[in-house]
């Protein structure tokens, strides 16, 4: 019938949401710039015109900034700038890789728990509760005591400790989505469970997980710093912001910048990740994914 036929060809533009309601501002770009610069510096640290971070120049201990040592030297005469950059390597490696472990493993567990529910959910939720009950510091101590301190071990521990949180985020997002009719529609079409999980649920759950990832990176960097500060992190002479702060503690009265410089760098980096994470979440959330 003619009436139905010329009903609709072009989509209803009226229903489209405006694109730039909460667009990224100057602050976002600055934060992103800092992160990019830091990552680049850490990646190409060897190419930078900096002295080696483990070179001890005992005659130049606690030196002020100079042409040779841009940010001065620490207690053992090592170049602070170089140690900062190499420390960034440590922090960023752990900070990026550990949450990824949590994201992949925790996200998968959460997806399965939220979709299948029943016994799978009981098992996963129980496991999450057990993991969360572990005092993280004690676990870190135990692992490092048994397996030794190294970048790899640190990454694995923090990754493992991050799994429960990602599981929870993925699980709650999946629970909400799995009841929606487009999932029922997919089942009605004869889609296998795998197909529904990968094609229908994952693209929708990926958004909140991804936004959460950036925040998790920030938290992980802080945690890594604390552990290094306590001496549980990467072993010397490897540079790490946390150990720098720890070493700087001894000379707070004479050379305060030895502690504060790495702390400031860490602060700015964590802030940058948080800002970027928040903005990404704000941009992606209301417009597309989970409309009620």
């Amino acid at each position: 019938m003619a009436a139905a036929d010329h009903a609709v060809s072009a989509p209803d533009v009226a229903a489209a949401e405006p694109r730039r309601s909460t667009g990224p501002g100057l602050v976002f770009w600055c934060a992103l710039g800092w992160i990019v610069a830091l990552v680049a510096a850490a990646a190409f640290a060897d190419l930078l015109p900096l002295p080696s971070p483990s070179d001890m120049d005992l005659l130049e201990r606690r030196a002020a900034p100079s042409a040779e040592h841009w940010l001065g030297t620490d207690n053992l005469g090592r170049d602070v700038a170089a140690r900062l950059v190499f420390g960034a390597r440590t922090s960023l490696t752990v900070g990026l890789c550990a949450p990824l472990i949590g994201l992949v493993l925790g996200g998968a567990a959460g997806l399965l728990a939220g979709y299948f529910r029943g016994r799978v959910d009981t098992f996963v939720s129980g496991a999450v509760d057990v993991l969360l009950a572990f005092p993280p510091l004690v676990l870190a101590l135990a692992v490092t005591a048994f397996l030794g301190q190294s970048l790899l071990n640190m990454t694995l521990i923090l990754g493992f400790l991050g799994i429960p949180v990602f599981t929870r985020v993925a699980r709650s997002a999946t629970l909400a989505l799995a009841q929606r009719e487009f999932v029922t529609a997919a089942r009605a079409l004869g889609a296998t469970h795998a197909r529904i999980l990968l094609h229908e649920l994952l693209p929708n759950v990926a958004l909140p997980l991804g936004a959460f990832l950036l925040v998790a990176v920030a938290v992980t960097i802080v945690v890594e710093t604390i552990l290094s500060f306590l001496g549980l992190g990467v072993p010397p002479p490897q540079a790490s912001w946390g150990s720098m702060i720890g070493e700087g503690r001894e000379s707070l009265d004479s050379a305060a910048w030895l502690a504060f410089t790495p702390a400031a760098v860490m602060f700015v980096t964590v802030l940058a990740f948080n800002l970027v994470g928040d903005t990404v979440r704000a941009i992606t959330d209301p417009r597309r994914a989970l409309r009620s």
Partner: protein
Amino acid sequence: MDSPLLALDAVGVQLATARGPLRAVDGVSLALEPGRTLGIVGESGSGKTMLARAILRLLPANATLTGSVRLGDEELTTLGREALRRLRGRSIAVVFQDPMTSLNPVLTIGTQIVETLQAHLELDAAAARVRAIELLAAVGLPAPEQRLRQYPHQLSGGMRQRVAIAIAVSCEPRLLIADEPTTALDVTVQAQILDLLAREQQRRHMAMVLITHDLGIVAGRTDDVAVMYAGRVVERARTRTLFKAMRMPYTQALLAAIPRVDAAPHTALSAIPGRPPDMTRLPPGCAFAPRCARAGDRCERERPPLGGGSAHAFACWHPIVAPVAQPA
């Protein structure tokens, strides 16, 4: 004839959206006498709910209200916040579509009614409780004392709506605005709720504004009716007059699109082609022209004013001339 209890004059609501200004309500003028029911009919996006909110001044932050809204002698658009607060609930009451969201889910029914009574009628707690039980019984809620202790989620949709009505009429308002009060309810419960509203209206000599998309409800329950489209009133008349001699092609098309109980099965419905317009990009002429079978050149260029007299007003360049028998 009484002077109107509620008089709207060129009321407009403009929303500031990211895509430009949106005139949700444009130049609406209506009058309602005490004790009578005005039906406002429209589909989603017609502006009927925004109009109700404009009367109560419960508009969103990005909205600008123009025009005049008079309740009796008082001009509501310029009323101060304190006076407005006293007015709402006491002189004007509202019943919304979804009682689950209009009732506070974490407070008991009793607390909510008693609060309202105490705030507006200055009764003490004991007197308010007695009155609350009376009200719940009056709206047909079985076992009213027990209901006082229950929470909204423990009641069915129909019962919640009765509670909402009880709260609304508790302070004997002069005007009751019911915004799609039965849309979320089953048809048998709908009939009961509408009967209840009519009863309460008669008992208290209230005026009522009944907002709905259902022409069936309008036909049986209202004295006057205004049809809204794209923020404007496009036809306004006594209910009988409207149904017997409608002038606006939109009203006729809307009526024709409803499946009829007395039609044979598989009768093709005369659907209205197209979609309601994008409110941020209204055409210069008549907003219904793109979908109207009677549209001409003038309709696309010039917007028809609401004319035709106060008894039966309509906004159309090519109105339906003869009284049309209802399509079978």
